[in-house]
């Protein structure tokens, strides 16, 4: 594993140590949160489509760890990891999934449509590619206002083939918008492998013809993601130009919780097992221990705390009320 090679014992400052533990805390929280969602879906507490982030945690956590208050994040429908990494209240996130009025969107959005403005999350979008346009507009507003903020836009490899991507990369390059496009290349768009949906499978290369930099990174190693994110976000903020990142990652679970054909129909159990060896969580765990940054007990404590937070979130969601029926007619128009 890549991180195994990093063995020089760095004398870490308190802050640095805390940052590392926070990365771990967030990834573990997301993992437990998603595992609970999977169970809740089978108990019909969660409906609709449910897309889990299991295996891809390092991406949201690594990138979002480098943001500042004026920055914004938008993503596609596989969006639980983004809001949790941004610090949304897990109880309100779970309540949204349960369709409760206490949810992030009062139970009207559901898994594919999170919003949490207070935490700079401007939406998960259920239409493949849709987020790319909106996020480019958010970055446009940052430029328009000459704010120091930048925008992170997360989407999947399947969205590489949406015409909207091409239109927006061109305008972002033309107008030098402060945005980082992050394609989570988890090798599949639903049941279709990248080789069958993309004429050129190097997605960073596909995005290299719009007049701004693009690169490929290892999305399974949160430390590498964080390092790359630090440089890239700094570049975008200071140079005021877009950046395209292809993050190589993998989802350990089916496309959606409803998909019972996976593994088998389009990928093998063996392939999944191979990738599980690169699971970002044990990966970081090993690094922290090997470098004496923390103890087994501390990690154990973090894990248990995450479980408690998720249980508490589930209880909160269970006990929350459904939106009153007259909510049906509210929020069609703003005053």
């Amino acid at each position: 594993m890549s991180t195994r090679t990093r063995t020089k014992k760095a004398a870490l400052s308190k802050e640095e140590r805390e940052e590392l533990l926070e990365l771990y805390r967030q990834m573990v929280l997301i993992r437990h949160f998603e595992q609970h969602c999977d169970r809740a879906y089978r108990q019909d507490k969660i409906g609709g489509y449910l897309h889990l982030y299991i295996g891809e945690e390092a991406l949201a956590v690594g990138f979002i760890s480098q943001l500042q208050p004026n920055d914004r994040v938008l993503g596609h429908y596989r969006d639980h990891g983004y809001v949790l990494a941004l610090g949304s209240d897990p109880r309100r996130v779970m309540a949204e999934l349960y369709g409760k009025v206490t949810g992030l969107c009062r139970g009207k959005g559901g898994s594919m449509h999170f919003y949490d403005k207070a935490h700079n999350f401007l939406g998960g979008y259920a239409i493949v590619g849709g987020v790319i346009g909106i996020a480019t507009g958010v970055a446009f507003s940052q430029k328009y206002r000459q704010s120091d903020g930048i925008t992170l836009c997360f989407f999947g490899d399947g969205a590489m083939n949406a015409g909207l991507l091409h239109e927006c990369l061109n305008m972002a390059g033309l107008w030098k918008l402060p945005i980082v496009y992050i394609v989570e290349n988890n090798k599949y768009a639903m049941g279709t492998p990248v080789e069958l949906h993309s004429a050129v499978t190097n997605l960073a290369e596909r995005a290299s013809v719009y007049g701004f930099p693009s690169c490929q990174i290892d999305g399974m190693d949160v430390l590498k993601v964080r390092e790359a994110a630090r440089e890239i976000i700094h570049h975008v903020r200071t140079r005021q130009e877009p950046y395209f990142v292809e993050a190589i990652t993998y989802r350990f679970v089916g496309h959606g919780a409803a998909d019972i054909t996976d593994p088998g129909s389009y990928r093998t159990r063996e392939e999944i097992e191979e990738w599980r060896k690169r699971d970002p969580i044990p990966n970081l765990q090993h690094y922290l221990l090997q470098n004496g940054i923390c103890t087994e007990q501390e990690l154990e404590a973090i894990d248990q705390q995450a479980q408690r937070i998720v249980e508490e979130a589930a209880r909160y969601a269970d006990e929350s009320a459904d939106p009153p029926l007259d909510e049906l007619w509210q929020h069609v128009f703003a005053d």
Partner: protein
Amino acid sequence: MATRLFREAIREALIEEMDRDETVFLIGEDIGRYQGTFRVTEGLFQKYGPNRVWDTPISEPGFIAIAIGAAMEGLRPVVEVMTWSFAFLAMDQIVNHAAKILYKSGGACPVPLVIRGPAGPGKQLAAQHSHSFELWVAHSPGLKVVLPSTPADAKGLLKTAIRDNNPVMFIEHPQLYLTRGEVPDGEYTIPFGVADIKRVGRDVSIITYSRGVLLAQQAAERLQQEGIEVEIVDLRTLMPCDWETVFNSVRKTHRAIALHDDWRYCGFGAEIAAQIQEQAFDWLDAPVLRVAGADVPMPYNKYLERAAYPQVDDVIAAVRQVLT
């Protein structure tokens, strides 16, 4: 007669037409190797191979445009949209290209194209995935619009759609895929523009299609116990549309209800009401009522969702109202 699931009947139509005509092919997202999200195309990739069943990238405008071009060259593409909500991306291809090419070419270039897939609410898919789609395409000269309510109709109408020389929008309801019904044995087709009286009654005409037919039947059975006889007119195709059968039904019952899941405002129910009052004004004892979806984006919460589109009680209430 054998019974079939709605989605099996669609698959049978695809198989029969692909067998009889080499130019028929399927194209869409995850319809081949993955067998289709709603399993409609299960087994067809294995049966017909990659030149007859095309898995596409997520590029609705692109692959629908490709289907149009292929159709202009005499192929008969059957496009699957995972849901019609994604067809908004290809609106320019559908409305401003497929529907216009025959006319602007002065009749020289027909476009024998079928686009099919699910549209409608009921699975908590929320605002961006739950659209009904019939109105968008019915309001576009050059497109034919089909919304079957039973497995038998689905099969016979789809076979007609594939043989038709025009762009046909074939809209399936996700709540119908697992409904079962009798399907005639052997070869048959059902012509466009012929409504089907799914139930004969004297007191009120419910003009509807797709899921609305099942809803109307459930309502009719409950109302029958009170001696109210509902007539159910299943339009089956909205373009062409069998208005004569509608008018005749209303001239008999003197009362009409238009029923659909789609939004009420500017929905197809408005056209039904407008036509009936134009053509059967003197036979009407009451205004034509509309039972339709609430004019709101579809909410995720399941109770709000149920409240957002017609349920049996809504139909029953409307019948009582139109009778008083």
